[in-house]
């Protein structure tokens, strides 16, 4: 019975195979027919359950096959967003390094391969960096007023009232009226504060916990104070010499080579302390080995305005004749001399990216320069002029006029009319400094020190391997060793710090000049013609002169012949090109037939 049922089952299958393939326009009719057949089969099946089983098995197989084909996507649907999520363009640009060059030509396939692979790697790195930006834990601070309220009218007390206790505690004043006015410096991590009173009072403290590290009076005039690479050492420019103390206040060094220092800047990646003195000397001290790197006589009189470019470690000096000069330790002359003001320059500040320089002068102006192109961008008139300038990590500018500290936002963009914030200190301001990685502006003045809260000043996310405010002693030690190991040599200071990674495309002429300098003679120079001595009166001076002239004439003819040939060749090539072009243009347009 089973055999008979099988034969019955086979019949319709064979029939199906012989049919022509179904067309979509025939679909409805066919379906109807099939349905009828199925109905019949169903009738048969009812009689033989075994038969039914085999059928379903086959159906199952077919289904399985279909499933196999669609296994790539289990649900049968395709992913509407294939691949990884795209990274926004501006975020990618933030991590862009350099410009992609052209690939080497195909014959240099090995080099081409290397270049392609390295570019793919850097692209990947750029993308991953941009993606990581999403994971940064903190957002920057901000201050927004009411619709018709200026943010500069908001007082520090209002802000302190509004924010939480820890943030509010960052607004405080130290009344130190005895030894002022005060200069100040924050350490690289922003954790520690160093104060130096004009009349000898030097103190350093962990300003967040208000813990005093040391306090002393050096019994001398203090011109400037500066933290060195870590919070363990600081330099004090005193009346005569430069001194270095540790954070317990113990005098470690008195450096007699550095006299009458007025201003100091520390270059953290080079371990260089740059000092500007009253005698017009710009000196560099390598603090890792304790040696003077170079002393440059600027011949510009008393140097009491100094800033450094954090992007390329170039020192900016402001002079009384209104110029700002740029210096490296490698050159005795200034790299650049800019006339910025009509009066003397009072203060200079350079932004983190090394793009903008802000100067203020005796002519009561505040000017913004693009120091990549040495181009003035903005010029503002301040009624009283600004005595001290400081730029924050996020580009806020603080300018002190008398006892008022004003903070401006985005001075290099659209011309600013109103300050972002303002604050009146108790005495005339002597130094302002933004605290790194905090929304804090430190103001040193005649009556002590004030720490102001300036929302949006600090970089919200620090890099733990570079400057970590929360580092432990062990981490600091490790960082110190690493930083010392990768101390950049002073010879590498230049206008463009990335120049070292660029290919040196020296021209043939330049290489030839170098070669001549090395060899001491020009190997490609033409030999001078010396006429041979001839007898029988043929070497009389007139004849010799004539022969010389002949040779010179011949040489000249050669040169002329060569140039004429070259010119003819170029002409010929050009003509051929034109001819080709004309031919191509003649063929090109189908609409030419309508032209008159």
């Amino acid at each position, binding site marked *: 019975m089973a055999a008979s049922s099988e034969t019955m089952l086979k019949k319709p299958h064979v029939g199906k195979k012989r049919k022509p393939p179904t067309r979509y326009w025939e679909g409805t009719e066919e379906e109807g027919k099939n349905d009828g057949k199925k109905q019949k089969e169903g009738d048969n099946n009812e009689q033989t359950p075994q038969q039914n089983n085999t059928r379903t098995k086959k159906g199952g197989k077919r289904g399985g096959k279909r499933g196999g084909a669609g296994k790539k996507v289990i649900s049968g649907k395709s992913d509407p967003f294939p691949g990884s999520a795209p990274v926004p363009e501006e975020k990618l640009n*933030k*991590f862009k*390094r350099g410009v992609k060059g052209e690939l080497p030509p195909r014959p240099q396939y090995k080099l081409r391969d290397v270049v392609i692979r390295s570019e793919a790697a850097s692209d990947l790195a750029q993308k991953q960096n941009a993606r*990581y*930006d999403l994971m*940064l*834990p*903190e*957002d*920057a*601070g*901000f*201050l*927004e007023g009411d619709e018709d*309220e200026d*943010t500069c009218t*908001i007082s520090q007390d*209002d*802000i302190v*009232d*509004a*924010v*939480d*206790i*820890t*943030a*509010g505690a*960052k607004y405080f004043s130290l009344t130190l009226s005895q030894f002022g006015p005060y200069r100040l410096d924050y350490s690289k991590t922003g954790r520690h504060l160093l104060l130096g009173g004009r009349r000898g009072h030097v103190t350093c403290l962990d300003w967040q916990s208000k813990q005093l590290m040391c306090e002393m009076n050096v019994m001398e005039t203090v011109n400037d104070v500066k933290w060195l690479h870590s919070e363990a050492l600081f330099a004090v420019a005193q009346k005569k010499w430069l001194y270095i103390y540790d954070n317990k206040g113990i005098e470690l060094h008195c450096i007699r080579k550095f006299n009458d220092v007025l201003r100091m800047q520390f270059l953290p*990646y080079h371990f260089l302390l740059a000092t500007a003195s009253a005698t017009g000397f710009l000196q560099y001290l390598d603090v890792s080995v304790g040696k003077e790197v170079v002393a440059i006589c600027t011949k510009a009189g008393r140097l009491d305005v100094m800033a450094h470019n*954090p*992007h*390329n470690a170039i020192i900016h000096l402001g002079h009384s004749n209104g110029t700002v000069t740029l210096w490296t330790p490698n050159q005795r002359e200034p790299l650049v001399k800019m006339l910025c003001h009509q009066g003397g320059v009072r203060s200079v500040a350079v932004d983190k*990216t090394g793009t903008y320089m802000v100067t203020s002068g005796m002519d009561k102006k505040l000017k913004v320069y693009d120091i990549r192109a040495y181009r003035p961008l903005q010029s503002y008139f301040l009624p009283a002029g600004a005595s001290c300038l400081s730029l924050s990590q996020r580009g806020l500018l603080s300018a002190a006029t008398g006892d008022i500290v004003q903070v401006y936002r985005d001075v290099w963009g659209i011309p600013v009319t109103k300050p972002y914030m303002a604050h009146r200190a108790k005495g005339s301001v002597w130094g302002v400094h933004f605290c790194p*990685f905090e*929304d804090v502006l430190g103001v040193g003045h005649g009556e002590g020190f004030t720490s102001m*809260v300036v*929302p949006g000043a600090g*970089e*919200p*996310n*620090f*890099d*733990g*391997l*570079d400057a*970590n*405010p*929360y*580092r*432990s002693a*062990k981490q600091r030690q490790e960082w110190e060793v690493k930083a010392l*190991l*990768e*101390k*950049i040599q002073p010879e*590498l200071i230049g206008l463009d*710090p*990335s120049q*070292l*990674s660029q290919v040196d495309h020296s021209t043939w002429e330049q290489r030839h000049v170098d070669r001549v300098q090395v060899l001491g003679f020009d190997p490609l120079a033409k030999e001078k013609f010396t006429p041979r001595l001839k007898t029988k009166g043929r070497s009389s001076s007139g004849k010799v002169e004539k022969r010389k002239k002949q040779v010179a004439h011949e040489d000249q003819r050669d040169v002329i012949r060569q140039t004429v040939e070259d010119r003819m060749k170029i002409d010929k090539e050009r003509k051929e090109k034109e001819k080709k072009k004309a031919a191509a243009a003649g063929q090109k347009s189908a609409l030419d037939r309508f032209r008159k």
Partner: protein
Amino acid sequence: RRDSSGTSRSNWKINTMIMKTNNSIYLCRQSFFPSRNSFFSLIFSIFFFLMESLVCASFIHIHAMKVKVLSRNPDDYVRETKLDIQRVPRNYDPSLHPFEVPREYTRALNATKLERVFAKPFLASLDGHRDGVNCMAKHPKSLSTMLSGSCDGEVVWNLTKRECVRTLQAHEGFVRGMVVRFCGTSFFTVGDDKTIKQWKMETPGYGEEEEPLNTILGKSVFTSIDHHQKEGVFVTCGQQVDIWDEQRSSPIRSFSWGVDSFSCVRFNPVETELLASCASDRSIVLYDMREATPLKKVIMNMRSNTLCWNPMEAYNFTCSNEDYNLYTYDMRYLDKPFTVHMDHVSAVLDVDYSPTGKEFVSASFDKTIRIFPKDSGHSREVYHTKRMQHVISIKWSSDNKYILSASDEMNIRLWKANASEKLGLLAPREKAAVNYSQKLKEKFQHHPQIRRISRHRHLPKSIYSQSKELRVMKEARRRKERNVRKHSKPGSMPVVTEKEKHVVTVVK
């Protein structure tokens, strides 16, 4: 939160009202969470005033002013317990990392200096032979086993313990060649006594005599032996190249091409049926084992001592020549070598490839070992010691880490293939640091200072002066040729490249 900052003014007012009705304690630390619906905001604000003590961010509203000040919770940045590792939050913003290139350059410079500081390649000297060591063989299955044959007998070494495991008197007179069978259970030796002997790798048990498995008496002296990679077939050379079946006592095939003696024969490790041999008539002859006659030969200016096939590139082999150079040939194009490797100052006696096929090591009569990248004309490394005499045989270990050299003064020396490499297991961070510094060195390798340091090698005075002398001679020859060309008819003195100079002819 930024999105929510643009809410309507009415919302603000309602909330300020609530603030005033609330407990005045909260006024110093109010947190505001605006919402679009004023009704909801009423409920929300009450709720959040209660929750507020949990919220540490300071996003605030007072007098319709909005302010946020950076206020970090130290718990997010400091490790919880002393058992944890320190937290290191990263921010890859390039403006926070100035002087990227100069710092990398400094790191590369330091890495290069450290590489030279740690370059201590010499590991051990295996002494025990009582005559000069003539040949060596690697064990195909065991890294720690090595065989050496001297001018009087031969020895099996254990490298990890650096001691001799077994000594046997194999031949009378020199042991000329030895090779371990591909399975590693036995090995073959040939010697000056005109015999080929097969030995068991296992040490004979107590009381058993040290006897060869097989001994074949040949007609002439054998100079070299090599075994097939997969089959029981081996090849010897002497007066002719013989191919032997292990089961038979006479060669299954013999090749000779008008030459009276061969110095070296090697099977190709990839194309296993191919062979190459160095003959004393300055030629290198190629054979196919399946054919009755040799394939072709190239005749050079001077005699080649040994050759070695590249284990990764089936077509390429390198031969060590008497004229102080090594030549890498593509066996398809024998008319000129594709690289000439110069630097030795005396005849090169042996050559062996690294298992990666990227580099090879050569032993020379000038008492030095040099390591060459396979496509570079000059060596990347030179090893020498005061006591090492003419190096006769050299092997690169199968794990690519060590080099073994056998020299005239009865010693076998063990060297690191990479002079400054740290041996043993590396911690993951160590490994990452090594890779990073390697990449940096690569990136800045063309900078003059780094290049000078990485290329600096101390050489024995004799070799230093000899190489200088050779350089002068070469320059003089070049100059002379140039002058001759200058003063002869244009085209009559064709320029012959360095590669073409050394090949006399190719015979097929």
